[in-house]
């Protein structure tokens, strides 16, 4: 039990340091693409530290606070179910459906807190974020279902095991991997799918009223959510039991998403829905038909 707790703490802190460093690095990558020097790799640590220990911050009431606890709390909880390579804190319960849904609690908490601030810009952002979620989840789910069916288990460790025997899903279902990658861009809110945030248009949407420790908490939540989402993609399509291998693949997937997003322009929200439901969803069903045939 004590062992478990120590492992959990080490895991959470490790994931935090890894992902925050990586997102600092990604800022550097974006800067180089734009021919700037960019901030130091540790800039995100400074940002989070500064925000958390700021002496003044604004609260808009209980729901505003409660939503933040719910968002970060459940994202950390989700992280604890997440395997890394072949290792997981609770190997029997690394269930992909639980992870996807538990992650939604975080989004719900954040949405509740943002709308609880009473700012209409936040409300608009949340309405867009939910719409976008509806758009990207569906193609992703079709592909996830295929993989679960092939691996005969919704446990991520079993899915990894299946891939070590049969080769990466990336090669056996390339269309599916492409679809999931586009969905991943939507999950991460990277351009062209950063409509819910849209800084120049709706003043960062849901984040508009946050300051000080609130914003710090949400930044941490965002980093953890990123870790889970990218990690999920790596496990589903490039599964192997090595932890170092996992981290390397993770870096490749994440940085490539950042690079693609830095040369894209933002879509309107109805364009996002139309795009996801036309191309990725169509391709996902095509992949399903190729893999399993027509089934009713």
């Amino acid at each position, binding site marked *: 039990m004590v062992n478990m707790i120590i492992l959990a703490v080490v895991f959470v802190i490790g994931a935090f340091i890894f992902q925050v460093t990586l997102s600092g690095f990604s800022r550097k990558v974006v800067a180089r693409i734009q021919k700037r020097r960019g901030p130091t790799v540790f800039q995100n640590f400074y940002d989070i530290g500064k925000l*958390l*220990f*700021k002496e*003044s*911050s*604004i*609260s*808009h*009431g209980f729901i505003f*606070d409660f939503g*933040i*606890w719910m968002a*970060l*709390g*459940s994202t*950390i*909880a989700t992280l*604890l*179910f997440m395997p890394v390579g072949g290792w997981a804190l*609770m190997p*029997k*319960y690394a*269930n992909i*459906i*639980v992870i996807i*849904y*538990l992650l939604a*609690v975080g989004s*719900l908490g954040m949405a509740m807190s943002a*709308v*609880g*601030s*009473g*700012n*209409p810009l936040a*409300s608009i952002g949340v*309405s867009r974020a*939910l*719409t976008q*979620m*509806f758009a990207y989840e569906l193609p992703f*789910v*079709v592909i996830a279902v*295929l993989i*679960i*069916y092939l691996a*005969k288990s*919704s*446990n991520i460790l079993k899915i990894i095991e299946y891939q070590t025997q049969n080769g990466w899903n990336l090669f056996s279902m390339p269309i599916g991997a492409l679809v999931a990658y586009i969905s991943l861009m939507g999950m991460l809110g990277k351009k062209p799918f950063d409509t819910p945030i849209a800084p120049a248009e709706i003043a960062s949407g849901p984040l*508009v009223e946050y300051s000080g*420790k609130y914003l710090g*908490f949400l930044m941490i939540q965002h980093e953890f959510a990123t870790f889970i989402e990218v990690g999920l993609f790596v496990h589903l399509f490039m599964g192997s039991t090595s932890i170092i291998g996992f981290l390397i693949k993770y870096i490749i997937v994440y940085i490539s998403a950042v690079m693609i997003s830095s040369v894209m322009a933002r879509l*309107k*929200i*109805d364009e996002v*829905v139309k795009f996801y439901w036309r191309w990725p969803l169509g391709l996902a*069903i095509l992949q399903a038909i190729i893999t*399993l045939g027509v*089934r*009713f």
Partner: protein
Amino acid sequence: MAFTIGSLIYSGSIFSVIIYLLTRFSVKLGSIFTTVLFGLYVYAIYILKDSVSISFIHLPGAYNLTFKADLFNWPFLMIGTIVLFVSALFSIHGLKSFKSAASFNFLSVLVGTSVLGVFGANDLLTLFIFWELMTWASFFLVSMGKKEARSAALFFLFMSMISAYLMIYGMFLVYNKVGSFSLDVIANNWGDLSDIRGRLFVLFVLAGLIKGGVWPVHVWLRTTHGNAPNIFSSVLSGILIKFGSFIVYLFVVFFPAFYLTTKGVSSVGAEKLSHPILAYIGAISIMIGTLSAIRQNDFKKLIAFSSVSHAGYIVLGIAFGTGSAILGGLSHIWVHALTAAGMFLSAAAVYYVTGTTNMDEMGGLVRKMPITFTTYLVAIISVAGIPPLAGFVSKWLIYQALIAKGNYLLTFIAFFGSVGSFLYVFRPLATVFLGQLPHKYDSVKEVPWSMQLSMLIVTILTIVFGVFPSFMLKPIIRIEEALSIPTVKIEGYSNIYTMLTQLDMFLVAIIFGIGFIFVTILFFLLAKSTKVEQYEQYTAGEIVQEISTTPEIYHYSKNYYRSFERVIEWAPSLEEYYRIAARHISRFYDILDGIIFKSGIPMYVWFITITILVLLLIRW
């Protein structure tokens, strides 16, 4: 003391009159009596848990009403009485300023007895009698609602009539064949009914779908829920539309599986029980319900369409036929009964203090009504199928079954309904409870204690059934074992094993709790924040005077998902087609009317003569 369904119904019918008179005398007293009666029902059904109880009500003629409570209908009876109890508790204060409170309580008790009668019936005729009792009682209850309630009630009655006629026809088909209405006899002879089984199946399942509010016969739900009295909506959606699911369960699962079990088949698999067409009807219902709910502006109509979607999950689960799917479908009846009650009761509480269910007119009510908000929040987390609440368990079981068969199309639709439900359930949360509180609601208060208590009970049950799903699943697993359907294994209170994986809801809840508490402690360790008023907003540097004077213009609520609606606008509406069809039919009759009646008596006489001549010619 041994209760039977029969004695409970007896007491119900006697008390209905007493409660009517008491309510005439004092509304509160009458409602308290109703609550006590329904509380007794809950207790009585609970102690019937492990027994088989058969009872009769003797009628003057040759026929007796027969009832039975055993493991096959216990889950339905239990959840039915719980919802009845909760909404009666809610009505203690909720009926204040209600014009016809006495009739409301009288009819509520009748609805209560009809719930026992339908779920506890041991023969089809008893089932039909109480089914009709429910229809008529609800007809009068619905017509007590808002302005347009009369026409809504008529529409409800019309749809119920269709379902009743289908049932009558089916009943007499069975009677001609086996000579009895008894459910046991039908179940035992199910194999010999092969020549009429197809017809029977269509008749009864269609009747069930109409009552259950499943596409394509869901159209009555919108108007009925939109106009029915708010308290009654929770019973209507929580229990009465589950009558439909019950009929579907009887004909899709119970009769075939029971027959095969008595014939000594050791494992009744999906190949015997699955009905793909029915499963797809459920799936379409999920999609239509979800997309329509996203477009509603009225709190209660939104919940009505969410009921359509969830009725779809129930039918999908039951009709898919594997052990895990049936378990998911039947447990979804529990889940949805509770969450529908929670959502409709919170809508009723909001109506109680604001006098409206139009979401565009409200906002920021969480500051005034924290308990109502909590009820709604817990209910929607369960509706959206998010762990660690009950809704996740039932949906998860359905997903497991669908994925295990590799049916990606149905899985896709099941997820579609689930992710789509995030959209529609969040809208009332954002527009009614959160955001800017208009000044006209500055003085409103939280609802009285009885309403709070009843909402709390629903909330606690939803959480308990989520964290310890065995309370909900064990009784249903018992049914499946008795029907020799291979089912999922459950260990302890919370550990569920299916073919694909295992799930421990208690563990999920604990981990979730640890994360939450850790963050909360960290939050309070850091510097304290300053609390500001609702009108202190970031407005991009502009000075907006109206924020403090008319906050509602600074509240984003109208057309919340307009951009999404734009994407699905082109989709045809079934209701529109029904309306067009109705118009054409009525025009056809107008023409007929014009030919026969308007052209005067000679024409009329002529037609009669012709008709008689034709009849004579064919010697009828």
